[in-house]
């Protein structure tokens, strides 16, 4: 029982999918609750992590509310999934971009967000978007 490096188990998808790495950006524009978009996008992002792609998330318009600290969803009887954004780091998804204008228009500041993000202008965000292979609007 001295075998090391047990990572060779057959369940890993990494080996089959290494080869092509594409840049994916998920663009979140909607408030976290009231529609299923934000939660579904988050689940797709978590699943995408299994395929070792270059994944980033952008938050703009009401999408910035997805990252707001201190959400209380009890009165609307839905799950508060905002803590899950803090799990993204463990999935090696660390590129979270927030549009400054959207944040400011809603009176939010960076320290009111639940995870570390990179705040940037819409112009800069557009540049990042330009670099992607795939952009998915949510």
């Amino acid at each position: 029982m001295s075998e090391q490096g047990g990572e060779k188990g057959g369940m890993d998808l990494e080996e089959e999918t290494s080869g092509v790495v594409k840049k994916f950006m998920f663009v979140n524009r909607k408030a976290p609750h009231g529609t299923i978009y934000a939660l579904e996008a988050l689940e797709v992002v978590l699943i995408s992590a299994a395929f070792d792609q270059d994944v980033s998330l952008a938050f703009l318009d009401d999408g910035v509310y997805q990252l707001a600290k201190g959400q209380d969803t009890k009165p609307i009887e839905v799950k508060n999934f905002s803590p899950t954004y803090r799990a993204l780091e463990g999935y090696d998804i660390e590129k979270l971009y927030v549009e400054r204008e959207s944040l400011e228009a809603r009176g939010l500041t960076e320290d009111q967000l639940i995870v570390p993000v990179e705040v940037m202008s819409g112009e800069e965000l557009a540049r990042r978007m330009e670099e992607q292979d795939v952009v998915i609007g949510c």
Partner: protein
Amino acid sequence: MAIEVADKTYETDEEGYLVNLSDWSEDVANHIAKSENIDLSPNHWEVVNFLREYYSEFQIAPAVRVLTKAIGKKLGPDKGNSKYLYELFPYGPAKQACKIAGLPKPTGCV
């Protein structure tokens, strides 16, 4: 579907995962483990408890890759590898251990 432990009935989905997180107890865990032919040892409990803590912090069950890495960080490389975890939970450390831990099936479990 449902399971019965000590004269109480608990609702499960078609794959045997508890429907209500709050139904979980150590007795329920032992019952589910037994039906999967697992005798829960302290090493099993370590993983089950780790999963429950992870869930309460992040509101999801981790994918197996993430679980393996996180266990390695917390309990050391001897335990943070697929071989060790698959020996404990032959049907997948995330899938099977989550079921025993009373959590939903992991997100990103492809």
